[in-house]
């Protein structure tokens, strides 16, 4: 089965909106039913137009909505590089197409159509991200879009995806909510989440620093921060740690001294920084300036933990400051499995430096979506979604991976890492040391851990 460009519903007029069309086409369809289309009526009754399905023409368009301005612009640039590479591999073969198994991708486009792409700027702002995504959907007729570097933008776009009936493959988003209370049928997350970070980090931290630690949390006061704080607290307390206090710090603070002073005044011997991006760079740098890595509390060396790491953050904070600091990350270019290597090599050949975890997530998601289309034999979103759900696949990173049907969270191996100090570091991009590769089974959790409903396969 493939898309039929001659579908009677293809001749949509300009300025005539999609949903109006849906309604009118149902009427005209019924009238025309007596005509020649009567033979195919059943066939297209179950394949009604959803989102930008059916795909017209010889090419299919993907949308890449990444931050091009604002604090995450560098991460966005890396995502876009990965997307371009994915498109190149889908059209010409190469990269993970050679390692993925099972794999239906041919390296000659998707379902016989050449893959093209458009890009947009999320500005790391949910409203701007939605407006940009609407441009891709309404004007550029993308069949799928992805990208982004924040949970708030990912969640906002997931809802849009469900409304519009276009699949959205989240970029970098770590909040539990994305596949928890805000999970959507049309949204998929390949990246890991705060709960998994906590599950992986808890035992490692207890192992490294002992079980009678007293932790002080500084948490970015927004939804992602809150979910990460909850998760880390839960899993460190399960190991016997005590949570002394938590301060919610305003998002985008540039000076953390008033909070660090509170930490100094407490009897905590571990500082957990639930910050991401520039917030984390600032809070970590300043905590080090406050001497918190050379301090003794309760007769123990004081420690700093950064539950979510990214290479750009590590780079921004500087090797001196991240030296030995524990955290978790989804993926690292130093991984030696076949899939990771295939990606890293082609990425390096193309751009001259290794990819970030955000790049890997975006690249893999694009391939997984395309592969699901091939397996479904159609771009029809409900079928593609069904093909993505619970499909197990290897060769796209360490171990096996799958999107769980119940919440669209991807489960795969993840990494606990430590920052590399100036002495250990070999080159500009060698920032994180893989401390432990945590197997998928260890971070999997029951689907009903967080309440939430995916919603219907066909948008309302």
């Amino acid at each position, binding site marked *: 089965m493939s898309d039929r460009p001659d579908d009677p519903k293809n001749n949509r007029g300009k300025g005539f909106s999609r949903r109006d069309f849906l309604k009118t086409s149902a009427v005209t369809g019924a009238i025309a039913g007596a005509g020649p289309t009567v033979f195919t009526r059943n066939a297209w009754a179950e394949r009604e137009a959803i989102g930008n399905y059916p795909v017209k023409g010889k090419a299919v368009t993907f949308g890449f909505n990444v931050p091009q*301005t*604002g*604090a*995450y*612009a*560098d991460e966005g640039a890396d995502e876009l590089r990965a997307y371009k590479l994915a498109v190149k591999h889908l059209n010409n073969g190469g990269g993970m197409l050679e390692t993925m198994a099972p794999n239906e991708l041919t390296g000659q486009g998707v379902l016989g159509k050449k893959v093209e792409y458009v890009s947009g700027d999320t500005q790391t702002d949910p409203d701007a991200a939605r407006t940009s995504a609407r441009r891709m959907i309404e004007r550029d007729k993308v069949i799928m879009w992805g990208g982004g570097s924040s949970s708030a933008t990912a969640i906002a776009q997931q809802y849009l995806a469900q409304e519009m009936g276009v699949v959205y493959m989240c970029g970098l988003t770590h909040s539990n909510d994305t596949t928890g209370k805000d999970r959507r049928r049309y949204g998929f997350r390949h990246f890991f989440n705060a709960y998994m970070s906590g599950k992986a980090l808890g035992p490692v931290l207890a192992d490294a620093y002992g079980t009678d630690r007293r932790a002080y949390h500084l948490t970015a*006061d927004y939804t992602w921060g809150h979910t990460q704080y909850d998760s880390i607290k839960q899993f460190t307390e399960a190991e016997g740690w005590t949570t002394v*206090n938590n*301060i*919610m*710090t*305003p998002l*985008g603070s*540039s*000076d953390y*001294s*008033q*909070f660090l*002073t*509170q930490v*100094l*005044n407490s009897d905590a011997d571990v500082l957990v920084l639930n910050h991401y991006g*520039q917030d984390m*760079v*600032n809070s970590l*740098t*300043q905590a080090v*300036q*406050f*001497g918190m890595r*050379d*301090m003794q509390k309760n007769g123990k060396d004081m420690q700093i933990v950064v539950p979510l790491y990214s290479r*750009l953050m590590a*780079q*921004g*904070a*500087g090797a*001196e*400051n991240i030296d030995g600091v524990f955290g978790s990350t989804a993926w690292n270019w130093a991984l030696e499995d076949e899939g990771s290597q295939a990606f890293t090599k082609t990425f390096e050949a193309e751009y001259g430096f290794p990819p970030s975890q955000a790049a890997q997530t975006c690249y893999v998601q694009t391939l997984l979506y395309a592969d699901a289309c091939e397996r479904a034999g159609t771009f029809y979103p409900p079928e593609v979604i069904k093909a993505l759900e619970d499909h197990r696949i290897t060769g796209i990173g360490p171990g096996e991976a799958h999107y769980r049907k119940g919440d669209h969270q991807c489960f795969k191996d993840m990494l606990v890492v430590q920052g590399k100090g100036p002495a250990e570091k070999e080159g500009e991009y060698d920032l994180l040391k893989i401390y432990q590769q945590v197997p998928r089974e260890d971070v999997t959790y029951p689907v009903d851990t967080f309440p939430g409903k995916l919603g219907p396969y066909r948008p309302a």
Partner: protein
Amino acid sequence: MSNAVFLQLLTGLQLGAIYMLIALGLTLIFGTLGVVNFAHGALFMLGAYLGVIIAGETGFLLAILLVPPLLFLIGLLLERGIIQHFYDRPHTDQILVTFGIAIVVQEALKWIFGANNIPFPTPSWGSGVVMLHEYLPFLDGIVVYPQWRLILVVVSLVTVLALFGLLQFTRFGLVVRAGMRDSEILRFLGINIERRFAIVFGLGAGIAGIAGLFGGPVTQVYPGIGMAYLVPSFLVVVIGGMGSVPGAVLAALLLGMALSFSAEYSNIQQIIIYLIAVIVLLVRPRGLLGKKGVLE
């Protein structure tokens, strides 16, 4: 005094110090030229970028010699090239043109250096912590504080005093102060007020340069830092009273202390500086030490 309270006071002081350094140039430009300069945060940011580059290449001491004069020069050029055409224009025009400049600076820096943070380590003579309990006998137990933050407080105080002296005890200062009151009369008296205005703008930019250089290792260096400090520094200026240097100092300290002592109460922390601005301005319409008729 308990250690905890002492540390909070100290933190309030040094939080205020950065605000003060940034607000100082802003209030000077505000008060003298009547220009609402939304590009002031960008000038601060330029100071931080020039600082991290020059300090990285040649060391921090040379950066101290180079960055403020460079910013002074940039300020002069900006005033002669653009700002001088806006003295008689509505505030909205001033806001838009300086906002435009701020965006251009921010995006140009992003283009050249990327959006990511550039690590700005404190120079070796200023890093590490000071054992405060060794100097202050009333503290019990071990009390440490980052040396760089203490240096920052000192630098702010020296800058404030220098500016105050310049305005209060020199002929240049006299003319500028008179110009703040009424530039028409000065023009009438045949004083070349334009040239002095340009120098004032340069001076404001130079102080922003000092703030960027010394604040950089604390606030870090990335293209968003200018905008991050724009609104708070405006609040400092307005709370203090437009164009009043002592007012800015007072307001900066007030905000610093408020932020420090509300640290544990996240809900208050979030809105405290705006709340203070509203209360102060409703009670004292011209700010703490503002004069009548300035920019109303």
